[in-house]
Structure formats: structure tokens, C-alpha cells
């Protein structure tokens, strides 16, 4: 039997909320798919579109950007800037032909370990039928 496709997800998690949220999921021993490569960033607003393009280029099947809920940003307004920028990046990636499901954003607070596991579970479920991402991937 052929092995099932396991998508690789790169998750940019903000240090103050989402990363702590994923930690909470971990220390609470919640079960969630091991397909995520978390990258801690200081703020979702610090995620440059370049990071996202490069994650796809280096073979990510999906990219998640996660930050604090609006109003909860450690830097007061970083996630508002992120919200605008990510909306534009999402539109652009869709326009050049990347499946819109491959790029997601979520708000996960430090207390939402459960939400984090759900976001990842759903993301993996969406990505599995899509298969590997080859549109922006670097040629081997």
C-alpha cells in the first residue's frame, strides 16, 4: 500500500500568543498531527511576505501565520498591520495560481491550546487531498 501523503506545514507563530498557545497544547498533551514546523517570530506583524514566499519555495505544502487576537497584541498594533499585509499576500498568491487553501492565518491566544490543535488538524485535512505543492517549489 502506498504511503499516505503527509503535508509539511510551516507555521509562523508569534512569541506572545500563538507560540505560547502551541506550548500549552504540548504540555497539556493534546493530540495533534506532527506535520507542523513551528517558527517563533516576535510578532505576526514581523512576518515579511518574503518569509512566506520562501517557505513555499523550500517545499512547504502549507503556510500558517498565527498571531494574537486583535486588541491583544503585545506591541499594541502589530497584528493589525499583519492582517492587512497577509490579506494582500493571500490575494496575490491566489492570483498567481497557488491553491488558496495552502495559505492560512489564524488568531490563537496563549490560552487557546485547543484551538491551535483544531487549526492544525483542519489544515492538515485540507492539505492532504491537495497533494504536494509544486507551484512555487524550487526545482531539484
Amino acid at each position, binding site marked *: 500500500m502506498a504511503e499516505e501523503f503527509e503535508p509539511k506545514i510551516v507555521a509562523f507563530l508569534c512569541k506572545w500568543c500563538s507560540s505560547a498557545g502551541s506550548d500549552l497544547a504540548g504540555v497539556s498533551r493534546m493530540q495533534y498531527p506532527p506535520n507542523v514546523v513551528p517558527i517563533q517570530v516576535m510578532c505576526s506583524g514581523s512576518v515579511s511576505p518574503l518569509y512566506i514566499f520562501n517557505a513555499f*519555495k523550500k517545499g512547504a505544502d502549507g503556510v500558517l501565520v498565527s498571531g494574537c487576537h486583535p486588541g491583544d497584541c503585545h506591541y499594541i498594533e502589530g497584528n493589525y498591520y499583519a492582517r492587512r499585509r497577509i490579506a494582500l499576500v493571500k490575494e496575490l498568491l491566489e*492570483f498567481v*495560481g497557488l491553491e488558496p487553501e495552502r495559505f492560512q492565518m489564524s488568531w490563537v491566544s496563549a490560552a487557546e491550546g485547543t484551538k491551535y490543535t483544531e487549526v492544525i488538524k483542519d489544515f492538515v485535512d485540507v492539505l492532504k487531498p491537495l497533494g504536494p505543492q509544486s507551484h512555487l517549489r524550487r526545482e531539484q
Partner: protein
Amino acid sequence: MVNLDELKKEAKRVLEDGKVKYVIGYVKSKASNMAAPAFVTDPEEIENLIWDPTCVQNLTKFIVDEKKRKAQQKKPDTRPVAVVSKGCDSRAINVLLQEKYIERDDVFILGVACEDLGVIDEKKLAQKLKGKRFGELTFDDKKNVVATTTDGTVKVPVKEVLAERCVECQANTPLIYDVFLGEEDRRKPDAPFASVEKMESLSNKERGAFWQEQLSKCVRCYACRSTCPMCYCDECVVDTINFAVTPDTTAQEKALRIKWIERASTKSENFGYHLVRAIHLVGRCIDCGECERVCPLDIPIRFLNKKLEKTAKELFDYEPGMDTEKPALVASFKDEDPEEFIR
């Protein structure tokens, strides 16, 4: 209609008064049928200036160059430069002012109105003439292009060979100027984003295939970057020179250096370059179409910028270059920004 003599008179006046360093305008090109940009320092040479639908270039680029030159000089001449500016070019000046890259006193703007025309697309004209070689182009009443070909003269209505961006133009009259020539007639296009909407109507797969084909052509000559008035960064992410390699640079330092985009013009790197360029121009690109015009491989780069212009308009009600007082698109936010896509 713009009175050319009036334009020359105004340009001559400011140059003779010593109010400006030089005048940037259009002259007849010796190499092609389209106009060429010219820097006029001698009032006598003002006579060579022209203004017709072959004046395609966005001269705002040269204001950026001037600023960079001034930064290099020990005692720069701080007088402004005069520039002949179409509606779209004036929007570019607006963006530079909004970003505080230049001061209002740095430029003297000779605004010219395109009225109900615009500039012509050389490729469209060549198509209309069915590949026949054409010599000098003249315009009768500014409504028809008169091209001299080997089979005699051919008349083509200017409207039929207008550049795509002029068909979708949203500022045919300069928004900012010191001297204004022509008639103020602010027309609004019926479908400012028609070309992009056509692309959007394709399926995701078809669009993907389209861009794969187009962007793998790119040879990364960076002509689009060089001609863009908004690409004024001193260091660019695609240049390798911003990492100095000295005898002291260790192998580890070299290995650990992040190469966001490689110089190789392979498909994935080209995607990287064009996506980053599009994102850097969001809320700044005023659709002068220069990038697409100069592309030696005819990549429809303009679509990427136009798409983001449309998105910015729809999601954030933002139009670049229309208001210098507004904060820049990605440097501001509103509480009610859309977030339906966020979980």
C-alpha cells in the same frame, strides 16, 4: 488640447529665470518612432520639446535619480528640476511626496493633460499595420496616427492603439502641478480593472499555468526594476552585493548567509522576484505600465501590480497616488479591516 508652444514658453521661462536646474521633457527620438526623454539645460534647445501620444515614458524616474545624485554631491544645486508630467506620472510624484522621499520644492511640475487620449502602444500599432515597417509617426488633430509605411501612409485612430493602461486610466489630468496645460476633463474609465477581471475569471489552475509559462521566460535583466519610479531602494533583496565578502569573512558566515532569492533565472526564483516586487509596490504602483513596456520578453508584469491595486481598492478603499495626506497602505490599518479569511 495641449498647446505645445505654451508648454515650450513655460519651460523656457522657468529655465531662463534660473528657477530650475533643467527641464525633463520629451523630444523626437533618433533611434525609434516613439519619443525619447530629454534633459534640457540650454533654453535654446527647448524648441526640440514635443508632446504627443508617443510620449510614453514616465519621467518621474528621473526625479528619483536626481535625488540620488544630489545625495552624492558635496554642494548640490538645490534648485528644483522641471518635469513634464502626464496624469499617471503626477500620481507617481504624489506617492514620492507621500513617502517623503522628495520635497514639493524639489520639482517644478509642468502638467499636461491627456484629455480623451493617452499614449500609444507601439506593439499594438505594429499589429494594426500588419507588421509593415513604419517610419515617422505624425498625428492629425490628435485623433489619428499617420504612419508612413512602405505601402504609403496609413491612418489609424489613436483610440484603437492606446496602451492598455490608458484604456483603464484613472487620472488623465495631472493631480499635482505648477503649470497646467490642456483641458481639465477628468474622465473615469468604465471598467478600470477589466484586464485583471478577465484573468480572475480563469480557474486557479489555468492562472497557475499562465504564470508558470510567463514567469519562466524572465531572464532577470531587472529592466522593470530600473524603470520603476517606485523602486528607489539603495539595496535590493535580489542583489547579492549587499553582503560584503572580505578576507575576514568565514566560510560559516558565507554558508549561513540568507539568500532569499538566488540570481539564477529559474522558475522558482523568478516567482520569488516578481512576487516580492509586486508586494513591495502594493499601494504605491500607480500603473504607469513602464515595467511591462520595457520587458524584453513581454511578460505581463503589470497584471500583478494591477491585481493588488484592485485588491487595495476593494478591501481597504485605498487608491495610490491620489492623496498625499493619507497614510500609506501597509503603514496604516483600520479597525474594520476585513478578517473573514482569518480563523
